[in-house]
């Protein structure tokens, strides 16, 4: 199947993706929270699309919808040519499931504490079925080796490993069926700096060796810069800027992206710009205009009433902001 992948055709196509959550305790008013609104993007073979945003930006929700952990409320997701949203989505997902995987944030919660490492890594194999014992055991050793762990760990239990080692095991499990696309949801956020670098390097090595594509979700802009080819910046459930890596960091257009970059603590001593004010609003009562408007230093009248659409301002660089409407 892998051979059929055309480098110019996206393996993932997302169009107008939307996700609503019902919120509110029972016996009180219920509201609808739009966690993801009108998101559209592609992922090309072999690339890493970084998705950055603060808490509540909807970044994890997108990742979960892509692998079928959450149903979409609207819009379309196409994986390897199969549309997994809509009435026939379940069947379609079953056909491409072996080509998708997910790596979680918390390596402590990502493994069943009562299972051996070999059974954890081989779980996708066991679910798929049809493997001989020998083939299964060989594959487990091969996978452990691939992520830089000794094959003698196979019989151990998760609690015997450190955070960095656990994350390697989680990655090994994700690779079990030789997928083409992996969603990494804050995959290094829970790790210490020295472990974080090891795991990032591992992910990038694996990408080079196996031709993987990643959707790399993170809140840390520096980490995203290190791993991504292209980057989508999310704010309040919407993609506000989507561009190639260098353009985004060297020439950020959206006021929110600019604020995020300015907020990163840096050792340089000197006068800093005052940080952007306010916090991410509750998406329960989404304002009519641009979601950033109440916090935005450049907001003008139109921002209050009209939500900006994502449009291309330079080749491969799109921004959702009224400042660039003239351009």
């Amino acid at each position, binding site marked *: 199947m892998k051979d059929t992948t055309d480098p110019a055709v996206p393996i993932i196509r997302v169009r107008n993706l939307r996700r609503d959550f019902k919120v509110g305790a029972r016996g009180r008013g219920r509201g609808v929270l739009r966690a993801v609104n009108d998101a559209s993007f592609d992922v090309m073979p072999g690339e890493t699309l970084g998705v950055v945003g603060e808490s509540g930006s909807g970044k994890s929700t997108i990742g979960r919808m892509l*692998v079928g*952990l959450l149903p979409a409320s609207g819009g379309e997701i196409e994986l390897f040519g199969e549309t997994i949203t809509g009435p026939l989505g379940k069947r379609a997902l079953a056909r491409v499931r072996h080509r998708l995987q*997910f790596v979680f944030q918390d390596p402590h919660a990502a493994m*069943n504490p009562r*299972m051996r490492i070999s059974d*954890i890594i081989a779980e996708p194999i066991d*679910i*798929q079925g049809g493997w001989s014992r020998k083939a299964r055991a060989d594959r487990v050793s091969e996978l452990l080796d691939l992520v830089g762990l000794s094959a003698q760990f196979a019989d151990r239990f998760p609690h*015997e490993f450190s955070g*960095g080692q656990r994350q390697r095991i989680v990655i090994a499990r994700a690779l079990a069926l030789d997928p083409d696309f992996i969603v990494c949801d804050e995959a290094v956020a829970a790790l210490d700096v020295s472990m974080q670098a090891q795991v990032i390097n591992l992910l990038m090595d694996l990408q080079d060796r196996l031709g993987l594509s990643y959707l790399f979700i993170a809140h840390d802009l520096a980490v995203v810069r290190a791993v991504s080819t292209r980057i989508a910046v999310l704010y309040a459930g919407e993609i506000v800027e989507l561009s190639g890596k260098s353009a985004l960091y060297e020439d950020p257009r959206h006021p929110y992206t600019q604020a995020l970059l300015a907020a990163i603590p840096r050792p340089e001593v000197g006068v800093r710009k005052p940080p952007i004010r306010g916090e991410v609003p509750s998406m329960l009562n989404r304002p009519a205009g641009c979601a950033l408007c109440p916090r935005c230093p450049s907001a003008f009248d139109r921002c209050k009433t009209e939500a900006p659409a994502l449009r291309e301002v330079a080749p491969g660089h799109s921004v959702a902001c009224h400042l660039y409407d003239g351009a």
Partner: protein
Amino acid sequence: MTDATVPPAAARAPLSPGAARRRILMRRLWRHRSFRLGAVILLVIVLMALAAPLLSNGEPTKMNLRARFAPPSADFIFGADNFGRDIFTRVLYGARISLWIGFASAMLAAAGGALVGLASAWYRRLDGVIMRIMDALLAFPAILLAIGINAALGPQVSSVIIALAAAYVPRMARIVRAAALVVRELDYVDAARVSGASAGRIIFRHILPNCLAPLIVSLTFVFAYAILAEAALSFLGIGPPPPQPSWGNIIAEGRDYSVEAWWIMLFPGLAISLAALGTNLLGDGLRDVLDPRLKIEA
């Protein structure tokens, strides 16, 4: 990439990891004072119940009119009752019935509660209906529900077991459901879902094994409650029918003579207390070691 060193914790354990894990757990349990005391008490009671024919005269229902109301002595160490039956023998044989009822109803309640709780936690659509039914059952104090069910089924050992089990199913179900709701949100369940695992695999391989700690802890507490409840039911005359001895009905029979022949009711009462005490101690130890966050509730 040179992370491939053997972790020190494992390096020190010469056994296979699974066995080592169990051994560590057992060692921690055994170091727990209450667990140790409770285990010893229960073990002694169970062994005595099993060895009843060897330790006593072996005839719990044999009457001996000459020995009526015999006080505790060398011949009758716990005394004799109004029919001259040996109380010691009756208490030992009563232990068999009382412990069996407690054990069987606790196990049944745990199994039923686990199934209901897991179903409720996994199939969210069923949750509302199941939990309303459980709420309705919980509306009755366990002893009342047991009385009602037992009244309906008639006075036999099996109906006491069913009645007590049914009375504790909703409580067990709530505990399992609460634990399962936490586990189902964990990443390893999502990992299994991403790989296309069936509901059965997720529930029985991932969720159930990780809900066992609260289940086992509440199982012990329910065992203690069930022993007490069985005694209360027997005392009210709706337990296992006489002349078969159970701890509760020995007390009930001795009640009329409680002032003159106090020994009839004193010793079975002590036996109940000791059995419940042992179980509760055991449960406290299990809770502290297996599931320290669990509140005492069952």
